[in-house]
C-alpha cells in the first residue's frame, strides 16, 4: 500500500461528500426498515406459493416454492375481486363528492363569517375525525340495528316505518355515511385554512365591484383554493380505495357484507382467514399499483391546470 497523499482539496471534498448522507441516514434507515423492506418482501411473497403433497400432514409435506405470476392471475380472476372493485368504485362515487361538497360548503360558510358560533361549529364539525374508524363504525352499527336503534323508535312514534339500513339495497349508503361523517371535518379544516390565507382585499375589491357573496365564493375563493381541493380529492380517493375498517366492523352485524366486500377485506381474508399470505400479497401489490396510477394520473390530468390558475390569479 503506497501512501500517496491526496491533494487537500479532494480530501476535504471527500469528507464533505459523506456529510449529507450521514444526515440522511436516520430517515433512510427508517424508510428502508418500515417502507422499502416490507414492500420488497410483499413483492417477493407475491411470487411464491405453498405446495402441499398428499394429505399435507406431518413435517416436510409442505414446501414453499416459486409461483411466477400465478398468484396474480388467481387474484385477478377471483369471481369476488371484480365485484368488490365495482362496489368500492360506487362507494367512492358517493363518498368523495358528498364529503368534499359538504366540507367545501362548511368551510365557505365559516369563512364568510355568517356563523356566530364559528369556533364551536368548527370544532364540532372536526370532532368526528378524532373518533377512530372502528369506534365510529361500532357506534353507527348500534344506530343501524333495528332492535336497538333509537331512530327506529322515534320514526315509529311518528308513524314512519324506517327501512332496514343494513339490507342489501341500503348497506352501501350505510357504510358511506360513516366515512362521510368521519372525513368531512378533516377536509373542511384543510379547505378552511386555505380560505383564511386569501388576502381579504380580494373579497373587498370584488364587493366594491358589486359581486354578491355567492359570486365571491364561486368566482374568487373556490378557484384560489383549488390546489387544496385537488389535494383533499387525492387523499379521499386513496382512502376510498383502502376502505376497510368500516365494512369490517359492520360485517358480523349483517348478512349483507361479505368477507370480500372491499378489495382490502379480500386481502385480509386471504392472509389471516385462509392463511394464504402469498395471494394476499399479490392482491396488495395490485391495489398499491392501482392507487399509484389513479392518484398520479389524476394529478397529472388536473394538477397542472389547477396550479396554473393559482399563479394566474
Amino acid at each position, binding site marked *: 500500500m503506497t501512501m500517496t497523499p491526496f491533494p487537500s482539496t479532494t480530501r476535504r471534498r471527500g469528507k464533505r*461528500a*459523506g456529510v449529507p*448522507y450521514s444526515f*440522511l*441516514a436516520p430517515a*433512510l*434507515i427508517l*424508510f*428502508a*426498515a418500515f417502507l*422499502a*423492506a416490507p414492500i*420488497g418482501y410483499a413483492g417477493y411473497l407475491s411470487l411464491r406459493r*405453498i*405446495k*402441499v*403433497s*398428499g*394429505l*399435507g*400432514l*406431518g*413435517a*416436510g*409435506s*409442505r414446501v414453499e416454492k416459486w409461483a411466477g405470476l400465478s398468484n396474480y392471475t*388467481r387474484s385477478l380472476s377471483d369471481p*369476488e375481486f371484480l365485484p368488490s372493485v365495482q362496489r368500492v368504485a360506487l362507494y367512492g362515487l358517493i363518498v368523495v363528492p358528498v364529503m368534499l361538497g359538504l366540507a367545501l360548503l362548511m368551510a365557505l360558510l365559516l369563512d364568510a363569517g355568517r356563523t356566530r358560533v364559528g369556533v364551536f361549529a368548527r370544532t364540532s364539525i372536526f370532532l368526528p375525525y378524532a373518533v377512530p374508524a372502528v369506534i365510529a363504525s361500532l357506534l353507527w*352499527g*348500534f344506530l343501524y*340495528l*333495528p*332492535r*336497538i336503534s333509537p331512530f327506529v323508535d322515534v320514526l315509529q312514534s311518528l308513524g314512519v316505518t324506517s327501512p332496514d339500513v343494513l*339490507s*342489501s339495497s341500503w348497506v352501501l349508503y350505510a357504510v358511506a355515511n360513516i366515512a362521510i361523517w368521519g372525513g368531512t371535518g378533516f377536509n373542511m379544516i384543510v379547505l378552511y385554512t386555505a380560505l383564511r390565507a386569501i388576502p381579504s382585499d380580494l373579497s373587498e375589491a370584488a364587493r366594491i365591484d358589486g359581486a354578491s357573496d355567492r359570486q365571491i365564493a364561486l368566482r374568487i375563493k373556490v378557484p384560489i383554493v383549488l390546489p387544496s381541493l385537488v389535494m383533499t380529492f387525492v387523499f379521499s380517493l386513496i382512502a376510498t380505495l383502502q376502505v376497510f375498517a368500516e365494512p369490517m366492523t359492520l360485517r*358480523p*352485524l*349483517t*348478512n*349483507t357484507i*361479505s*368477507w*370480500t366486500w372491499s378489495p382490502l377485506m379480500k386481502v385480509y*381474508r386471504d392472509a*389471516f*382467514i*385462509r*392463511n394464504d399470505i402469498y395471494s394476499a400479497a399479490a392482491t396488495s401489490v395490485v391495489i398499491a399499483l392501482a392507487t399509484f396510477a389513479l392518484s398520479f394520473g389524476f394529478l397529472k390530468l388536473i394538477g397542472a391546470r389547477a396550479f396554473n390558475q393559482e399563479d394566474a390569479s
Partner: protein
Amino acid sequence: MTRKFLPLAGVLAAAVLLVATGCSSDDSTDTGTTTEGKVNLTYWSWAPNMDKVVAGWNATHPDIQVTVNKQDGGDAAVTKLLTAIKAGSGAPDIMQAEYQKIPTLVSANAIADIAAQSASVKAKFPDSAWNSVTLGSEAVYGVPQDSGPMMFFYRTDIFAKLGVTVPTTWDEYAATARKIHKADPKKYLGTFSAADPGWFSGLSQQAGASWWGVQGDAWTVAINDAATQKVAAYWGGLVQVGAVSNTPMYTPDWNAALNDGTQVGWLGAVWGPGVLEGNAASTKGKWKAAPLPQWDPAKPADGNWGGSATSVTTQSKHKAQAAQFINWLNTDPAALKALVTDANVYPASTDATSTALTSPPAFFADQPDFYTIAAEAGKVTNPFTYGPNVNVAYSAYNDAFAKAAESKQASAFTAALATMQETTTTDMKNSGFKIAG
C-alpha cells in the same frame, strides 16, 4: 446521476440488511429454559382463570413449572402460533387448539405427535373427541380438553303462555316455530345464523355428515352430501316461510332479542349458560335446557359446537414433560374439578360427569339434570372429521349462506352449500392436497 445515487443505494442496502439481521437474530423469547433439572413451560390458552387450574399442577410438580399466557381466542391464537412457527421461534410449549383447527396446525407442522406419552389416556374420552386429536391416524396431536354437545334452550315462561310444548323432533321444531311466529309476529323460536359456521357444522354432524375424511393418502370433501343438504334445505324452508329469523347470532341485536323475549329459543351447546348469563342476565330462571330435536327419535344423535384439545407445539424443547402436564390437566379428577369450577369448561373426559359436574351451572340452577342431558348428548355425538382448510370452508359458509339468508329462498340455501363445497375443494387442489373422487 448513477454515481450520485450510489452511496444512497449503499446506505439503503445497509439499512435493509441491518433490519433483516435484527429480525432473525432474536431468540431471547425462546421457551423452556432448563436450570438444574427444572423445566419451565409456557401454555397459551383463552379459557378464563386457567392460571388457577394450572396452580394446582405447579404446587405438586416443582420440577415442571407451567406459566399460562392468556390468549384472545381460538382464531387469534392460531394466527399467532402459525406466525411463530414460520419465524422459527416464539411458540409456546403447550397450546389450546380448537378441534377444527387441529388438521390445519398439523398440516403446518405446528403441533407434535405425543402418542408415546398420551396414547394411554384414550379410554378416558368418547370416540368422537379422540378422533379429533388423532385425525383417524396412529398419531396423537393433543388430548381432548372440552367438548360442546349441542342442546336446545327455550324460554319456559313464553312456551307456557303460548301453550307450546318442547319439540323433540325437527318436524316438531318447525311446527313450533311456525306456531310461535303466528301467535306473535315479533317472536321467533330461533334464527339461521350465517355468521356461525360451527353452529351449522354441528347441526350437520347430528344429521350424519362428516365434511372431510381421509381415504388412504387422499382427502375426501363431503360438505355437499345428502345429510348436510337435508339440514340446509330444512333451514332454507323455515327462513323462506319466515318461521325463523335470518339475522346472525352474537350481535347487539340478537342480545336485545334474547333479553326482550323475541328470541324464544336457542340452538346452542353445553357452554350456552355462560352466553345467556352474559347477554341476558335478567332472564335468569326463565330458561330450560332440552336435548337437541332429532331427525329420527329412534336413533338419537347429536353434534358438537366448539370444543378444544391441549397440544404440544413442535418448537417445544420438553415435549415429554409438556405431554405429562397435558394428561394431568385433562384426566386428573382434581384438574377436571378445577376446569369446571374455575375455567367454566365442560371437560371432554367421560369421568367428569360423575366427579366434577355434580351440580348444574348457576344460570340453570333450577335444572338438576342439566349435565345429564349434556352427557347423554355427548354419548350419541356422531363422529366428524375436520380437514386441513376449515377456515376456507367456514369463510365460504359466511359469504354463501349470508347471501342465501338475505334472499330468503330455500333453493338459495342448497345452492350455497354447493358453493361452499366448490370453494373448499378448489382451494385444496390449488394448494396441492390430494383429493379422492
